[in-house]
């Protein structure tokens, strides 16, 4: 069993690298305005869009204007998505006659999809009309991931540019992410998904008479078009309640394989984009290898834990898993979806063994930097790189600098904000939920597992992941509102300080190369991996001990 698992994982990683390398180079070209092989087709569309948008593509702005455009654009998104859900019952494409969404659920969902979290307090097929799924969810899946990529590209420019105020044009970065990257990939991917059995129709739900003579109503809808961008944009919000475990979202082992590759590939490509734009490809590899190392460490622990099965029952742990995915692919999917900020699930995380679940939680708690969400994952990792170089600077007694830019108090304050604000919000809300009836009455499991349900929810919200310990009934005003706040903080406390860092770095001169500490060697990789693990452990170890670790001990001493 271990050997075949090893073979699968190694093959998987090799294929991931083969896909990510050229994609990274492609993105570097797109975002520096160079010709790519799709330009002949897309460039005219791009020009046409700028004309109707009223955008001058040659005009770049400083970080303040960039951030301002980004925030206004996201605010518009929240408002539109909120209203759309409230009035869906009077709009077309609602064959099931689904009613208006309750206000707190609608607000939570609007924030959730704009923040690229896709936390879902609702069950898709029983709550959202086809029109809401398309205009709301599908469209927002595109733009929220495009915003993430725009932020990453801008952050990279902060290192690349010297002595300038301008860091880019938000509208240009947004448009290019969508039409050169996300849309073409989604078209190909959604057609592939349909060919394997993912549905794409506007039929009313099908009534079937089963062989044993019962009636079965089968939900339908435009699933493939949403599934494709849900995966590629690391969004993760399922069309159906059961998300990617639903046979209409993920019907076969082959779709499972490509879905996991799909939500890793852009995030895994961005370090290579970084290397290419910095004109230092070794640096891109160093970041990639750091991420890969963290990924493999977590995966080994999670697999080891899940392969032990459930000792109380003396059986493999197949609760909440589909036969076609089995133990291995459920764990690889779960680990990958929490390492990135995807949050799609093909197995129920609530039913994983406690140490498996702990790894998934830890992935989100460290801010999803192991590949991470499209764009923001790379930014998160580079923030850890800044912290690492600061610590190294202190140790060797030199002014800290990174990739040729001096690090000063301003950058360090902003970097620390990115790291601690989401952590604070999860711990505070987690404490609130586990000490009030409002929070506790939603639990599905008792004891330490119940605490894990709460912790997971806020880690998922603040980490902008969106997967859940779905036993927790989060569709209450208390959880809808606290999680909405957690998602907003998680998203914008990463994006805004990152853009200020980019703005500040872009204005600096470059330090001469000979005086630099090497940031592409093994020493750097080991340091950054250690910093990520230590910062995460220092913040969350106590609470993990009384959650998943205690549960693990209880299980292995059960009945004694």
């Amino acid at each position, binding site marked *: 069993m271990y050997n075949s698992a090893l*073979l699968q994982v190694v093959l998987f990683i090799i294929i991931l690298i083969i896909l990510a390398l050229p994609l990274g180079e492609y993105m570097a070209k797109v975002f520096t305005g160079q010709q790519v092989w799709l330009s002949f087709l897309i460039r005219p569309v791009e020009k046409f869009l700028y004309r109707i948008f*009223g*955008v001058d593509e040659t005009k770049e702005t400083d970080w303040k204007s960039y*951030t*301002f*455009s980004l925030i*206004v654009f996201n605010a518009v*998104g929240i408002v*539109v998505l909120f209203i759309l859900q409230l009035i869906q019952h009077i709009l077309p494409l609602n064959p099931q006659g689904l009613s208006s969404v309750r206000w707190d659920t609608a607000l939570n969902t609007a924030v959730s999809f704009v923040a690229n979290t896709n936390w879902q307090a609702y*069950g898709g*097929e*029983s709550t959202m009309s086809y029109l809401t799924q398309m205009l709301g969810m599908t469209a927002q899946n*595109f*733009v929220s991931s495009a915003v993430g990529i725009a932020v990453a590209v801008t952050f990279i420019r902060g290192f690349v540019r010297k002595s300038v105020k301008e860091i880019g044009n938000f509208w240009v970065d947004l448009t290019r992410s*969508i039409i050169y990257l996300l*849309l073409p990939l989604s078209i190909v991917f959604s057609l592939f998904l*349909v060919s394997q*059995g993912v*549905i*794409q*129709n*506007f039929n009313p739900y*099908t009534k079937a008479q*089963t*062989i*044993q003579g019962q009636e*079965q109503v*089968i939900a*339908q809808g*435009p699933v493939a*078009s949403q599934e494709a*961008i849900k995966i590629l944009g690391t969004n993760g919000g399922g069309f*159906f*309640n*059961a998300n990617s*475990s*639903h*046979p*209409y979202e993920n019907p*076969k*082992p082959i779709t499972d394989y490509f879905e996991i590759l799909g939500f890793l590939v852009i995030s895994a490509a961005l370090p290579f984009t970084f290397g290419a734009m910095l004109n230092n490809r070794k640096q891109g590899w160093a970041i990639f290898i750091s991420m890969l190392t963290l990924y493999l460490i977590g995966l080994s622990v999670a697999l080891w834990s899940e392969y032990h099965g*459930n000792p109380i029952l003396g*059986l493999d*742990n197949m*609760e*909440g*898993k*589909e*036969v*076609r*995915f089995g133990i291995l692919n459920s764990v690889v999917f779960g680990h990958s979806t929490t390492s990135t900020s995807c949050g799609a699930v093909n197995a*129920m995380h*609530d*039913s994983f*063994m*406690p140490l498996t679940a702990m790894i998934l939680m830890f992935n989100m708690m460290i801010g999803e930097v192991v590949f991470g969400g499209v764009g923001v994952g790379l930014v998160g990792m580079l923030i850890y790189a800044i912290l690492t170089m600061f610590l190294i600077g202190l140790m060797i007694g030199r002014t800290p600098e990174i990739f040729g830019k001096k690090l000063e108090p301003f950058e360090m304050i902003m970097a620390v904000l990115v790291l601690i604000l989401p952590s604070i919000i999860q711990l505070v809300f987690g404490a609130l939920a586990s000490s009030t009836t409002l929070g506790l009455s939603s639990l599905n499991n008792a004891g330490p597992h119940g605490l*894990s349900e709460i912790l997971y929810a806020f880690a998922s919200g603040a980490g902008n992941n969106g997967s859940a310990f779905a*036993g927790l009934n989060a569709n209450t005003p208390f959880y809808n509102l606290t999680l909405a706040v957690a998602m907003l903080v998680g998203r914008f406390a990463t994006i805004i300080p990152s853009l200020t860092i980019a703005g500040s770095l872009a204005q600096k001169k470059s330090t001469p190369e000979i005086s630099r500490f090497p940031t592409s060697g093994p020493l750097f990789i080991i340091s950054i991996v250690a910093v990520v693990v230590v910062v995460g452990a220092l913040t969350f170890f106590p609470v993990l001990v009384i959650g998943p670790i205690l549960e693990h001990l*209880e*299980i292995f001493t059960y009945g004694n």
Partner: protein
Amino acid sequence: MCLPLQGKENFMKEIIKSIKIYLIFTVLLGLVYPLIIAAIAQITMPYQANGSLIIKDGRVIGSELIGQKFDKPEYFNSRPSAVNYNAAGSGASNYGPMNEKLIEQVNSYKKNNKKITADMVMASASGLDPHISIENAMLQLPRVARQRNLPESKVKELVNENTDPDFVGIWGKAGVNVLKLNLTLDSL
């Protein structure tokens, strides 16, 4: 925060621009894109796009991808489902590994059956799992063969025919499609 743009006029202009761009993208990505995919899918792959439905005598009896409830002894039984195979409301039990209800459920099943597999007693993630494991099918095989007066070798052949493969031999798991298998049994 100090406003990066000078004056109220620029401020309003930026907001209007945002709304305009948002709406254009919403129409392009939320309407045009799904409709184009639907059109291509409906023309080139109508069977898959409409849910891989199985139709017998003009009536829909289910989908080959969606599990349905089988608990009669003459059929291969499907897995437990937390939503009772409600395909308009998918979902799981979300029991943790030491949830009392889960332990009770498994133990009571163990009392009546000597040999069991995990997927026989544990609910799936979607509640609509169309498969059972091959080991599970092999344990049920003698019962089904007896009920239907068929030689076990014949039933075993049908099980193999209705097993959906994994991906290139290493990814995912082969599983026995319960609905397709039971349909084949009924058609004998």
